[in-house]
C-alpha cells in the first residue's frame, strides 16, 4: 500500500531532492514512521513529543489532518499527503 507524500523545499535535503516520495502505513503516524526509515531524520522534523510540530501543516488529500484525526488519520492506497511549513509571523 503506497501513499504519495509531497515534500516541502525545506525537507528535500532529506529526500535527495525529491519533491514527492512514497511511504506505507495504515495511519498518518505509521506513514511517518515508515518515511523516517527510508529518509532518516524526517520523523524528527515533523514530530515533537509524538505530536505534529506546530510549524508544520499536514494534509490528507485536501484536508488539514488537524481537522481529521491527526496522526491517527487513516491513509489509503492512492491518497496524497502534503506537508507544508505554516506561514506566519508578527511584529513581536
Amino acid at each position, binding site marked *: 500500500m503506497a501513499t504519495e507524500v*509531497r515534500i*516541502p*523545499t*525545506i525537507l528535500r535535503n532529506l529526500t535527495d531532492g525529491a519533491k514527492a516520495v512514497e511511504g506505507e502505513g495504515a495511519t498518518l503516524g505509521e506513514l511517518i514512521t515508515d518515511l523516517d526509515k527510508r529518509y532518516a531524520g524526517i520523523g524528527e522534523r515533523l514530530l515533537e513529543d509524538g505530536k505534529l510540530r506546530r*510549524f508544520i*501543516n499536514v*494534509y490528507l488529500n*485536501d484536508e*488539514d489532518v*488537524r481537522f481529521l484525526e491527526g496522526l491517527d488519520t487513516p491513509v489509503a492506497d492512492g491518497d496524497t499527503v*502534503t506537508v*507544508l*511549513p*505554516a*506561514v*506566519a*509571523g*508578527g*511584529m*513581536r
Partner: protein
Amino acid sequence: MLRIDRAIYDQIVAHARRDHPDEACGVVAGPEGSDRPERFIEMTNAERSPTFYRFDSKEQFKVWNEMWDRDEEPVVIYHSHTATEAYPSRTDVSYAKEPGAHYVLVSTRDPNIEEFRSFRIIDGEITEEPVEVIDGD
C-alpha cells in the same frame, strides 16, 4: 537581490495599506528555480490582527497545490507590520521555513512613507538584500 515588477510592488503596498491596521500577507509565485516573482496572490490573514499574521491552512493548501501543478514556487512571501519597522521580528524568523523565498516586509506605520524591504531568512539568520523595482514599458 530582489528584482520585482513595479505593478506587483504596487499591489503588495496597496494590499498592506488596505488591510491596515491589520497585518496583510501574501505570496508572489514564479517558475521553479527562476527567482522571478510573477504571479501575485493575496492571502487572508487568518488572525485578522494588527500584531500577527497566519496563512489560513486551507487557503494555503489550495495556493500551494496550484503552484505545484504549475511548477511554481513562492518566490516572495510578504507581510506588513502596522506599527513597527519593516524588519523581521523574532516570530517572523521562527516561522520562516522557505529558504528559497524573499521575505518582503512592508510597514504601514506612516501613511505617507513607503517602507518596502526584502530579506533572506535561512536557519534563523536574517540577511537584508537590495530591492530593484523594474518599471514596465
